[in-house]
Structures are given as C-alpha cells and as structure tokens.
C-alpha cells in the first residue's frame, strides 16, 4: 500500500472555483457587450479588446514584478477589462483604455494585494479617473450605427445629458424625453459601449442571480430605491422608468455593485449597500453637476463596506449577546 494523504476535514469541496465564477460573470456580460458592438461598431469591439488585453498584461506583469504566484488564470482581469471597456465611449483614443487598465489593475487592485483585497471597484475607479482626466475624449457620444455612414450627424448625446423637450399645447405643459422607452430598453441610444442595452444587461443580471453568483438583494435595493425616489420627486412613472434604463444604472446595479471584494458579504449589508447606491445616484443625477452618478455612488459605498459588514453581521446561533468578552 502506498502512503496516505492526511488533511483536516472536510474532505469534499463543492464543484466551484474562482475561475468558474469569473467565467460565469464574463458569459453574463457578453450579450450586453455584443449589443454595444452592434450599435457602436468595430471601434467598440476594438476598445473592449484593448481593455481586456491590457488588463491581462498588467496583471501578469504585476505578479511577475511582485514575485507572487501568477493569477491571470482566475480570469478576474478579463472581467475587470470587460467592465472597464463597457464603461467607455466607443470613440476614445486607444491610449485611454490602456491608462484605465493600468489604474484598475495596477493601482486599485494589485497594489492593495490583488484579487479580493482591493477596497474600491477597479473598473469604476478607473472610469472615474479617466472621466476627470480626459473629460473631452470621454464625453464624445456617437449615435448607434454611426459607423454605417448613413447618418447625417455622427455624435449625439446620452439619455441623461440630452435636454428634455418642453412645450405647451392647448394650454397644457408637456415634457418629452429625447428617447423613447423602447429605444432605451433595447439600447439604441448614445452612451458607453456596454451600458445602453438594458435588455441584455437585465438578461445577464438574471443569469448571475439564477446561477447564484450574485444575490438579487443588491440590484433590487439599488434599482428599487433609485426608482422610488425618482418617482416621488418627479411624480411620473415614465420619467422613473426612463431614469432606470438610462446611463450606467443597470450595469452598475447588476455587475459593479455586486463585486465581491468591494461590497458587503452579509445579507442585510447587501440591501444597505444597494439602497445607499440608489440614494446617492438619485441625488447626483437630480441635484449634482454631473449628469450621471452611478460610478460615484458605488465608489462611495465601497468605502463604507467594512462598516456595513460589521454593523449588519448576524448574531451567531445561540450566541449570548451580553457576553462581550
């Protein structure tokens, strides 16, 4: 008889790994990314590719320089790259996604210890840095199918930046949205590559919930609290639905506010996190100087995550509350 392996129990593990989880997230992101490529053309696909490749390269280089085990096989760098690319306009010069990947992978993720150790969402932080550093390049919004060459004007505005049309007819005041809800739902509007197609983002989000990669609590609390506040403020169901479908709300709620490393692990904490994001997004969009507030809301809530986890931890089964020592 050969030697026996000795290990502490349990001797069985669930058929799951970090790479499998990341692969599931990638699959969930692909429909929305593909929709972005259809609307914004080969240029969008190229931006996504540059992001993904540079994220992988930066991750690999970091691990080599830091003399740590290689981690590109956990696929998390691909998720970061994909998310970053989906949060950029299709027309950005290619050095911007490279700089963004550097910020996301090197500064936000690896300098804090790599996967699971970063306190801020890498893709969101990179997007915010790029937005503030390269504001002109980051605010060019092309119209869907601009690459087909049949449009009169190539650039337009995003659903959030575009002015609503006010007019009076027969003494009644009307307010018209720049895009129809159908256009908003299918994503035929200006915007970042991966944020416009609500249908595919919801599809991907539901896939993650069904495969139990994410909990429904965060997106429901995020979207729900934002929608509730918007409805109370505007009194219009139409404007509420428009607000939910517009900008980065859905990609943020399903894919960024559910990032493991930077959001709470407790069930209650996920709800608190979602509500916090929804409230901050509403405040920035309604009263702030930026048209969009999803990125800032998630980043701000990322900073509160350790406190939320601590304050929302369940009382262990049978624990005596009084015995603090």
């Amino acid at each position, binding site marked *: 008889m050969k030697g026996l*392996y000795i290990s502490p129990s*349990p*001797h069985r593990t669930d058929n799951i790994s*970090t790479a499998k989880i990341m692969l599931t997230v990638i699959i969930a992101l692909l429909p929305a990314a593909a929709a972005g490529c259809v609307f914004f053309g080969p240029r969008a696909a190229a931006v996504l590719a540059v992001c993904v490749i540079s994220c992988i390269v930066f991750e690999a280089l970091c691990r080599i320089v830091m003399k740590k085990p290689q981690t590109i096989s956990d696929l998390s760098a691909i998720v970061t790259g994909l998310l970053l690319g989906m949060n950029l306009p299709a027309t950005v010069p290619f050095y911007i996604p490279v700089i963004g990947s550097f910020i996301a992978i090197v500064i936000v993720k690896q300098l804090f210890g790599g996967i*699971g150790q970063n306190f801020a969402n890498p893709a969101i932080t990179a997007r915010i840095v790029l937005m503030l550093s390269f504001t002109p390049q980051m605010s060019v919004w092309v119209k869907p199918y601009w690459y087909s060459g049949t449009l009169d004007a190539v650039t337009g505005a995003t659903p959030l930046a575009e002015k609503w049309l006010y007019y009076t007819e027969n003494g009644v005041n009307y307010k018209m949205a720049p895009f129809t809800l159908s256009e908003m739902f299918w994503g035929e509007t200006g915007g970042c590559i991966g944020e416009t197609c609500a249908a595919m983002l919801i599809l991907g989000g539901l896939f993650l919930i069904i495969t139990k990669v994410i909990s429904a609590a965060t997106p429901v609390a995020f979207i729900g609290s934002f929608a509730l506040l918007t409805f109370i403020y505007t009194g219009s169901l139409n404007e509420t639905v428009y607000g939910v479908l517009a900008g980065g709300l859905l990609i943020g709620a399903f894919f960024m506010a559910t990032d493991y490393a930077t959001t709470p692990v407790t069930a209650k904490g996920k709800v608190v996190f979602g509500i916090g994001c929804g409230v901050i997004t509403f405040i920035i969009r309604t009263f702030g100087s930026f048209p969009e507030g999803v990125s800032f809301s998630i980043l701000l809530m990322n900073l509160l995550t350790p406190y939320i986890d601590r304050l929302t931890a369940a009382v262990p089964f*049978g624990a005596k509350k009084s015995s603090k020592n």
Partner: protein
Amino acid sequence: MNKLNGVHLRHNKKTRNCETKIFPPPKKVTIPMSQSMGAPCICLVGKGDHVDVGQKIGDTDVFMSAPVHSSVSGTVTEIADYLLPNGSVCKAAVIETDGQQTMCPDISVPQITDRKSLIAAVRESGMTGLGGAGFPTHVKLGFDPSKTPVDTLVVNAAECEPYITSDYREMMECADDVIGGILLIQKHLNIPMCKLCIEDNKPDAIKLMTEKTADIKSIDIAVLPSQYPQGAEKVIVYSATGRIIAEGELPVNQGVLVMNVSTVSGVYRYSKDGIPLINRRITADGTAVTKNAGNYLVPIGTPVSEILAYCSAEDAEKVLYGGPMMGLCLYDTDQPVVKNNNAILAFKHGKVPETTACIRCGRCVAACPLRLMPLMIESAYNAKDVAELKRLKVSLCMNCGCCSYVCPAHRPLAEINRLAKAMLPRK
C-alpha cells in the same frame, strides 16, 4: 422559526440497501484504551494474558470515560503505544485471536430497575455515542434531573453525512431494538416525549418507524429536510424542538437529551443480553472501493487494512474514519476500527485542491449554520487578534465544514476555525 443555513450534498448512499454482514474476527486486533471523549482507561491486562470475548480489558475511576472490552478471545501479545488521530498517545492492547470466540463467563444480563441501575449498566456496557463524537453514554444519561429536568429525548437518525448508511441499516434491521431502547430510557429517566429524527431522504425508514410507533404516544417521528449538517447536535435540537442551545450550554440545559439511534438500540441490546460494546456496524464505501461496498458488523480493534482488502480498496490515497465532511484521516491502514467509527471510507484521490486568495464572495457566511463569518475569522486568526476572534464567536463553531466545502478559493476555513479556537484562552 428561522431556517438554519447549511449545504446540499450529493448523498452517495448507494449502500443503503446492503444488509449488514458479519465481518469475521481478524487474526489480530488492536484495542486502544482511549475510545471515548474523556479520560483514557488503564489497561487491566498484560502481555501473555488470555482474554475472552466481552472481557473488560480497560477501565478507569475517572467519571468522564467508558470502559473497553475485548472483542475477541485470544492472547494479549503486546501493550503498545497508540497514536490517536487527535495527536495524543494512549496504550492499546494487541490481541492475537484464537479463533474460538469464547464468551467471557462474567457476562450476565444486567438488572435494570431504576435510573441508577440503568446508568450503572450503561457504564458497564462501555457504550459511547456511536454517531461520531464518542461521548460516554452513561455520562450523558447521568444528568441531574433536579438541576436540568429533561422532557424530550431527541434520537438522532439524520445521518446527514454522504455515503454513510449504518444508522439507516440499524433502523431497517433492528427497529424493535431502537424502540425498545427509547422506551427503556424514557421509562427510567422519566422523559415523557421522544422525537425520532430522520432526514427525508430515508423514506423507507420513516415508513417503518412510523408503522412501528403508531400505537406509542410518547414517540414522535420527526421528518427533517435533507440538508447538511442536519445531524449536528445544535441543529437537530433546533429542527426537532425549536429550542436553541446557547453558548456554553449542553442540550440538557434546554431539557433535551440527544442520542444517536444506534446508541439507543445498543443500550437496549445490552439490557437484554449483557454483551458489552465489542462490535459495531460500519459502512465501507468510497470511490476507491471496487467491490463489496456495504455494511459490516466489525469487531472493535479490527485493522482497517482488513476491511480495505475485503473491499479491494488498496489503491486508496485517503482513508477516513467517518464521513467526508467531518471524518478523520487515517495515517496508517493498520489503525483499528474503534467504537465511534460509523464508516470506513476509502477514496481514490487524496490531494486537497490548491488554495487561492479569498475573493470575499461571502459563500462561507451564507453557508454557516451557526451564522458565523468564517472569512473574518480567518483574517482575525492571521492577525492573531484574540479579542476579535471572541467577538466573532469562533468558540461556537462545531466544525461541520460547510465553509470549507463552499469556498471557491478552497481555503481551509474549518481548519482555521479549529486553530482559532485553540488560540482562545481556556476558561
């Protein structure tokens, strides 16, 4: 009533219909003097002594212990040092069998008439909890009813570990012994109610026990959902009675006595024939078992290698005492079957998966039946932060292993909980 968390495991209970076969006495048995939670026994025999089946060969004055008996007739060839799986060393009697299996003349049917005589008889039987923990049964039955009155006997037949079917076979083959044991304990310890708890993946046992107890008002069959760790003491008490065993408490503090189903029927059999605990049913199974997977009544002290040979499992890389979730690894296949082994499982692959970084997915938090936070316990353990470990209540951990099981990074969280517990100052 809040549902407790847990995990759903593949049951792998393919030996459920394997009737118990009697495993022949081996040429040599090794009987450790420490086979229960508590103090080891002092060996009563020496090298060269002849022993009979059922002869007491180890005993102690310490209350928290149970005597050990010879499972064979033969000659003591050695009193050896034996390294227990928990790392401590005790003496073990090595007995060469003579093949006669002569019964010890001292064996007599005990006179059980009241609480005191029942507890005394159970002590003499050498009975310990057969479910895995090996708690001396007479200590458990010896609760003080004036301080901790008990109104419910919870009989644990959940058998929530994969592969193991030995308790299931006990119910299917010895249903009358199970009921007899329950009634015996209820009668002498004045326990009005009994909950016989069975997981819903054992419909035949539920049906049989329901039929057999139809006319017995004091026994209630509790059908529990198949979710690991349903059979853990705190979990089964909560599932069966809704009572919460708080930090530092024993089930008797909540008026509950928890006993494994095979222990209960073992007590009954001893009350009828006076033969102490010298053999036990084990499930032999696992991916390395190529033939004869099944249930066997094995003399205590039988080298596990004999069972592996019988099951053609010599290629195993990992052999366990007990189930895959909480079982202990054997370091040597010559280690013997002991009282609290409900299974010998042999697996083809023994390597543990490679550990990667924690991604804070929170699966361990969602899986923990006791609502602990294993990922935070790991951080506190790495920081040697004892105050934080206390705040996180790591002392409550029962090592069910759910956290390690669900971890996508394959972090040894259950192991770290154990190490973290050891870091706490002893009271």
